[in-house]
């Protein structure tokens, strides 16, 4: 599988940012040597996974409101098949961390992440989740959620506009579409 094969409706490959990360990722995969049949099956699975990302909203502040705008009629996250917001972490696929994570909240974030079923992805939305944002110098703020859970996609903004979040979700879809399900040694 080539990175160029990963198509997202509406945006051509060249106009995506940070393509080099995916290219490196694919090179790493191809070093293992992927069987053709298996990779077709992988494509089916990845198609399913990337088009049915059920989010779990870990919203602690204003970015959560922006997510609501994303889910509402004007932007409509349902177009991506992602409107099934599961409130139980066991049933969700992508955790959208939207908001400041303080040290008291951090263990809970970690616990919710641990409760999610594989495959699970994390999307850090907004400055606070990415780096601590304006509160970064406070004694009580976690400087970016990647210190607690592995983050797949960072969506900068304060808060990001709904289209920004869509763009981030499409980046995540691209990443998911390159994954390997069978014979993955890391699993």
């Amino acid at each position: 599988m080539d990175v160029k094969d990963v198509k997202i409706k509406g945006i051509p490959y060249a106009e995506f940012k940070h393509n080099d990360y995916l290219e490196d990722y694919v090179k790493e995969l191809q070093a293992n040597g992927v069987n053709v049949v298996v990779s077709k099956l992988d494509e089916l699975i990845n198609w399913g996974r990337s088009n049915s990302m059920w989010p779990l909203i870990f919203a602690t502040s204003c970015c959560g409101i922006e997510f609501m705008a994303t889910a509402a009629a004007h932007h409509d996250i349902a177009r991506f098949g992602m409107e099934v917001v599961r409130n139980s972490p066991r049933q969700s696929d992508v955790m959208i961390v939207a908001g400041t994570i303080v040290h008291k909240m951090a263990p809970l974030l970690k616990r919710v992440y641990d409760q999610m079923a594989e495959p699970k992805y994390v999307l850090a939305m907004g400055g606070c989740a990415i780096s601590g944002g304006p509160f970064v110098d406070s004694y009580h703020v976690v400087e970016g959620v990647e210190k607690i859970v592995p983050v797949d996609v960072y969506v900068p903004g304060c808060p990001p506009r709904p289209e920004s979040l869509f763009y981030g979700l499409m980046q995540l879809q691209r990443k998911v579409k390159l994954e390997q399900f069978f014979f993955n040694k890391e699993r």
Partner: protein
Amino acid sequence: MSGNYFSGLFKGVKSLLVGMGETWKELWTKKVTAEYPENRKTTLFVSDRWRATLTMPHDENNEHACTSCKVCETNCPNGTIQVIQKVIETEEGKKKKVLDRYLYDLGMCTFCNLCVLTCPSDAIVFSKDFENATFTRDRLKEQLNKEGSKLREKKKEVKPEAEKSAPEAE
């Protein structure tokens, strides 16, 4: 008592029917959804006041207007901007501090516009390009001045300030 029961029942049924009528009307209204990735070249509307990422405009000679005065860096409440200077020697043999690297952490910025407002030479503006999601945190830390760019000469600055961004207009 029994009168209440029945009038309540009928009132309830009536109000439920009114509610269902409203949703029925809603079913046939025009759908308001803006389809983002499909419309990004056509009808996508981003307000001029939207601030998505900090940029440093360069002209065709690869020159920018930043004098590396560090006002933006001191004014930034988050410590998002880092201006790194270097010392060069001008033709007259004087030593002068110019901009070496202008570092900007997009993941930390709250887009408060203080840097743009206070910049004495209008070297930086906020752009509307909101598609900035990346896979790694490092990618969000950008260098705004391009490779090999240098400070614009004084005479060019006499031009009317057409490039001023909209938020400053009061």
